[in-house]
């Protein structure tokens, strides 16, 4: 897959959807394409985060440790981004991500990610917007949950 195809993938990700194609190309060029085999682990819960991954091809599962062992909490497919929280704030990974099929990803290192944000404020704005959306959604869920309980 060439750079231009990767740019197409990036455009489909909400976080990057409003960013100009030329900047996305830079992001694609400077990030590393990493291939995982089925069963390979992208990162483990508790590790310090050093990169985010964008799934280009294949599926992955998100697992969380609990008293009853690993629980699968989500599935990821092409065009999903994973691991971006841990590189934004210095917290350990909150979950383990494992390849369910052979997986092609773009790996954006923490360093590169911050460099892009400082260089292109519009990426930062998009990320803020995305995070605000998520916060909004979480709050909404919490409100519903509280209402149901009360």
């Amino acid at each position, binding site marked *: 897959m060439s750079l231009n195809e990767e740019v197409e993938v990036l455009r489909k990700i909400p976080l990057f959807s409003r960013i100009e194609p030329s900047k996305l*190309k830079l992001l694609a060029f*400077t990030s590393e394409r990493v291939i995982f085999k089925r069963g390979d682990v992208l990162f483990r819960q508790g590790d310090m985060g050093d990169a985010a991954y964008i799934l280009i091809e294949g599926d992955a599962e998100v697992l969380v440790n609990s008293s009853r062992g690993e629980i699968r909490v989500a599935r990821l497919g092409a065009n999903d981004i994973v691991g971006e929280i841990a590189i934004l704030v210095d917290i350990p990974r909150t979950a383990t991500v494992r390849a369910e099929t052979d997986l092609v990803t773009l790996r954006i290192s923490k360093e590169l990610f911050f460099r892009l944000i400082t260089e292109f404020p519009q990426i930062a704005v998009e990320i803020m917007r995305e995070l605000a959306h998520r916060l909004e959604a979480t709050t909404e869920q919490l409100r519903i949950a509280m209402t149901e309980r009360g």
Partner: protein
Amino acid sequence: MSKTIYGFVFRYSARQQVLLLLVTLAAFPFLYLSLELPKTIINRAINGQDFPAELLGMEFDQIPYLVLLCGIFLLLVLINGAFKFTINVWKGRLGERMLRRLRYELYSRVLRFPLPHFKRVSQGEIIPMITSEVEPLGGFIGDAVAQPVFQGGQLLTIFAFILVQDPFLGLAAISLYPLQGYLIPKLQRRVNDLAKQRVRTVRRLSDRLGESISGIAEIRAHDASNFHRAGFADLLGRIYEIRFEIYQRKFFIKFLNNFLAQLTPFFFYLIGGYLVIRGDLSFGALVAVLAAYKDMSAPWKELLLFYQQKEDARIKYEQVIEQFEPPGLLDERLQLEEPEAVTPFDPSGEVSFVNVSYVEDGATLLEGVSFTFGLSERVAIVGPGGGGKEAVAMILARLLQPTSGRVMVAGEDLFQLPEAVTGRRMAYVGQGAQLFAASIRDNILLGLKHRPLRPPADERGERAARAAEAALAGNTADDILADWVDYAAAGVEDSQGMSRRLVELLHAFDLDREVYELGLRGVIDPAANPALAERLLQARCELRERLSHPDMAGLVEPFDAERYNENATLAENLLFGSPVGPEFEIDNLAGSDYVRAVLEKVGIRERLLEAGREIAEVMVELFGDLDPDQEIFERYSFVGAEDLSELQAILARLNRLSIAELEEHERARLLALPFKMIPARHRLGVIDDALKERILEARRVFAADLPPHLRGSIEFFDAGRYSAAASIQDNILFGKVVHGTAQGPARVGELIAEVVDALGLREDIIVVGLDSNAGIGGGRLSAGQRQKIALVRCVLKRPDIMIVDQATATLDNGARNRILDSLFAETEGRCLVWVLDQPSQAQRFDRVLVMQDGRLVEQGTYAELEQAGAALRGLVAAE
């Protein structure tokens, strides 16, 4: 060391100076003759009448007489030239030898400075003194005696000549000399003071410069650069003022001299003219006297100039020397003299401090400290920082001299022992151990290099000649190229035994893995080490085997002469080898005539230029509007920030022109781009399969057509041969780690380690790693690695007393404990003195000394002090 420059000159070169003077005087008659002869040629040979003329009892006609005289003239010119040449060479050689002696003496003194002195004078001050400040002295020393005698002699001769013509005029000619002789030194004195100030200020300038360099991180981190600029500018301003004043005064002296010199002819014309008119003096005599006076002014001027130079040299010498005589300079004999035999300290002996006090810059660091311990004990010294524990360690290592009191080791006064004993039977390592810009091996062996032990191979006697010359300048005759390593002191037979011992110690001090990594990146010469090369080739086969396992498939793409390697650069794919030297370095390929010829023969030059254009377009698109200072540029772009604007210009021209119409250097710029492309990594898609096929064709042409003079510039990839141009790792790998496999490089590294261990190669690779350079001040290694290497350096020489001054403070706890274990094992049965930064570790020692406020407050075993002593308990509790 002589206090004055003339003291120095006479002490070391009196004989040569006299010789030089004699030769100078011997030249005189010939000089005189060569000035006299032209007169004879004109008056007697050309204008002469009475021929045949007589010379040396033979008679000559006019023409032969002329030829003869001219022949003699030519001969005299040659003789004069030969004298001048000889004198100058002698002077030069004498000056250089004396300069060499002076520098050597100064350096030798630096090596004997008391350590606290380095807190008062900085590198920045000392270095220019030895390098640049004394430089002009060499030139002066050659002239020191001959010049004043020569010029003075000339002056006297001419003066005598005038005096014979007319005593009155003779005295008149020198009438102003006393005035000059009085005035000039007076004026010069102020210039001398200024010169001293200048020297001091320039030293401060270099001190400031050195400080800025070592403190650059602080300056940048605090935005203090402008403050430092201002400080530097202030010093420059001071130097400017001083120098300008020196100029003014110097030129004023010159002006005064010239004026006084012209004043004398004024009197000659006036008084002499008066006398001629009165008829008391003949006209001819006045002319002769005037001419003679003119001759006199030249040597007089030279003498005055010499006086100024002498003053300059005197000041420089004195200003330098006074910096090299600090109080407490170590006795020269203690460093230079080699005892008959250096015997180990008796392990049943004792170390005792008797009432030791130490005062530095008015602060009392130790006061009346007395203790005794055995030479087979392990002693821990604990206490708060600055409480005196560091001073005790440094005094015991003889790095500091106590202000009062005595230190006895095995019945001898420590401060009377030569360094040959203290430096071999004792070892000290502090907190910031220094490494030198040499290989790790040489850094470790430093502790065994005391004297040249085995002379270097020297077939032509050049080393002996160099040593003889060194002796003439009072330098050491010890040969740096000799083998200095004292294998016996380390308990090994030879260099191979040493390698084994080093590997053992690296393992004990937790350094083996790191040095192994360095070794993997190192190179070996297969011709010098065929057995190792052969085994590394086995490792290559073994790795290939393991890589064929399904779990490992796709980790490495091996080099294959028939296939394009997707994970290598286009340059590597074209060359199919490692460049040796600059000819085929990746940055030079586009400019190489041979590469161009190959590309043209295969007919892909235009195609690659087109690829270069595409890459340039992408680069400009991606990076064109980025801030060029961004690191992102360096890391990801193919081109530097400056080159990018050039590419932009080339692309702009391509809007109007075709690639073929570009200038040659622009085409080279474009051609350079695709060489760096790695398809699997860059994913730009500009190298298609058709092009790859053509590159493979170019690869074959490149190898087939390679002219003989370029054969040495490349070492082709060859599955069956070890490449001297590639690192050990690349040789084992013989391929490229595939980009984009998760954890690829780490997994390949593990696999290589497995293979290396399976074939028992690890030790050999560590030995190669020992040859890696430590960098300036050990800068290529981490602080922890430097400390460990310094410890290995100490342990290797098996000292009777090992002193460790908080040397492991920068390491993590695990490493500290392992190193403590290793040091205990290595110093078994001998004396180990450890200044601990963690008092609780003292438990493992036989005896504990607690230092506080410069006093020994408690001593005993850990158990005793834990029960009875308050100080140790307090320290441990506070840990």
